[in-house]
């Protein structure tokens, strides 16, 4: 186990990081299945809290409960560029863009403007396209990689983190993996917002599992994962939190074959998922801890310097959990 979302079989992650003076940003992509797979749909669920601002591809995800695209996390002025890169990715795979793996792309815009100059859009279409093609199933490199580069959380350096756990459920072994983009939040309730925070600090959780689920269960899984952070992170002004959960089992393959067919899939009992939900919450906290622990000091926009959370404060947050 790599303690990473890539512990769920088939999942690849790519990072592109750009650190140059006032520009401290990056892009992270989660590929739900290897690129060699074609025309696969997966079930997805979501849960958002606060003033959530953006993810594209949500109409298909919400109306059909499916997606096919890589999930791309980038800063909030790069969303159009990332979307365009995914359109290129789709056209390369299939000229009938809408029915293959890249449309509609899921692009999540995250505000990293405390450390990063968002007004300079320096990440390019080609940076993103290349990064997706080089995604792999290695363990998380470090918290400052990709979109993690410019993020601040709990008044200190935030970033990306991962975690995973094996679960035995219904007599079978499953894996649950999670990636966090830790951004915003305060250590205690009623705390005056730290000055080290973006204008609209958005936190994102991506939850992957090979437990066969349908969108209804995945919505609940996303909610459980996000709520698992409640004891560790308190909200500050403008906080946005989004969790997307998907299942790598129950995939719909061969939907575009020219024949009528039914798909045999499995449906877990929603009322028997408490253990899985508890695991998801624990995974969120573990991923947050990894993001905070592995963060390194970054000097960015306006000469601002943000250091990792001191060890003692980190312990006090996670000790009570």
């Amino acid at each position, binding site marked *: 186990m790599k303690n990473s979302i890539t512990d769920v079989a088939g999942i690849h992650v790519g990072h592109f990081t750009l650190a140059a003076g006032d520009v401290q940003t990056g892009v992270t992509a989660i590929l739900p299945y290897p690129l060699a797979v074609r025309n696969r749909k997966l079930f997805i669920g979501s849960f958002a809290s606060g003033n959530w601002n953006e993810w594209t591809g949500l109409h298909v*995800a*919400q*109306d059909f409960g499916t997606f096919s695209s890589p999930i791309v996390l980038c800063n909030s*002025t790069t969303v159009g560029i990332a979307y365009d890169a995914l359109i290129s990715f789709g056209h390369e795979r299939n000229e009938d863009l809408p029915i293959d793996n890249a449309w*509609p792309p899921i692009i999540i815009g995250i505000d990293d403007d405390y450390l990063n100059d968002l007004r300079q*859009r320096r990440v390019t279409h080609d940076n993103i396209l290349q990064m997706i093609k080089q995604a792999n199933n290695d363990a998380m490199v470090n918290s400052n990689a990709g979109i993690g580069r410019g993020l601040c959380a709990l008044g200190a350096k935030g970033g990306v983190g991962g975690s995973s756990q094996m679960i035995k459920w219904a007599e079978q072994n499953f894996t649950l993996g999670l990636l966090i983009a830790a951004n915003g939040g305060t250590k205690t309730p009623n705390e005056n917002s730290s000055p080290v925070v973006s204008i609209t600090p958005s936190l994102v959780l991506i939850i992957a599992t090979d437990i066969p689920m349908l969108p209804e269960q995945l919505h609940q899984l996303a909610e459980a994962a996000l709520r698992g952070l409640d004891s560790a992170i308190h909200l500050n002004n403008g906080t946005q939190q989004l969790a997307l959960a998907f299942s790598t089992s129950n995939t719909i393959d061969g939907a575009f074959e020219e024949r009528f067919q039914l798909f045999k899939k499995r449906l877990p009992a929603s009322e028997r998922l408490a253990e899985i939900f508890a695991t998801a919450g624990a995974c969120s906290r573990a991923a947050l801890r990894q993001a905070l622990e592995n963060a390194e000091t970054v000097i960015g926009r306006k000469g601002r310097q943000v250091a990792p959370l001191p060890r003692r404060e980190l312990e006090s947050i996670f000790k009570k959990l």
Partner: protein
Amino acid sequence: MIYPSISRRKFLKTITAAITLPAIASCNRFTPSIRSSPTRRRLRELGINLGTLPMGKWNAITDVAGVKVGHYTRIESSDIRTGVTVVFPNDDIYHENVTAGRFVMNGNGEITGMGSVDQRGLLQSPIFLTDTSNIGRVMNGAMTWFLKTYPEIGDTALTPVPIVAETFGAFLHDSAGRHLNDEHILAAINNAKSGPVLEGAVGGGVGMVCYDFKGGIGTASRVLPASHGGYAVGVLVQANHGDREQLLIDGVPVGKEIQDLQLVEGKKSKSIILIGATDAPMIPAQLQRLCKRMALGLARTGAISSHGSGDLLLFFSTGVKVKHEALMTEIEIFNDEWITRAHQAAMEAAEEAILNALCMAETTVGINGNTAFALPIERLSTIMKKYGRIIE
């Protein structure tokens, strides 16, 4: 029952006479308009009147005071058939947000920036319409405009998410090549104005196909009775949906009556975006309800909302303005008990906007010689008469 109607000969004579007039002067008292083609006419100019509510001055979304529409149209060589259309709810939407609600009739599409609509019930971006492959380009062009217009964005103020909606234009356009960049999006923004709206194969509608005829941009409006506040309700569509045999005009199966002029080769494309506007002060829940009535208008043109169709609807009210970051805002709210006329207005305007797109779009030949024929409006009089409709 015998309905009075003009003869086909007289109808054609009227059309011919109108064609000889300068485009803008040919606007009759029913439906002032501007046109991209001298031979095309709006539904009302053909003597077909839908519904019972009166229309606004321009019979367009711009009848809602403050609303502006801009197009940039790019038609080059045999392959490039694209563009962008922008709808501005007011002149400073980033600082002066308006209420909005949305509805998904069928989710196989994209309209970005809906987080703000879902979570805050507010619109903080103009609304852009384009073809599918250009969403990223238009989002980025819109971001260029935002950053240029508002230097505080990304420094002390939040980054807005551009609202960009799409339908798939690859039947006529080189989709993979995209062919839009920042300057085209900025040109559409600079072209935005109130008053009459160009319809048909313009802006985001250039590559679109509707009921297997040439589709594109269409608009229409209704005015509520003075007893209901006299507010305007306007709709603008980018129509790219439906199969020929489904098309209904005022309940008449026009699609079944026109068997020729079929699409020449190429893949067919689906989807429709409907944007509604009103100056009636409404909260998001009320605007979501108006979205559903636009869907009824869509159904009255024969649409079944197929699986492949991204049928996405968005409605905003300029009657509720919220200053960005205002701690508390005094607002007025429309009385639900009086909202039925607004439902009717949204339905009628949506139906007519779609049919205006069909009536105003002209035959377009695009990539690989793919051809979408214009709805033959000169045949409508005969067909409508066959089914006992009045042509006025």
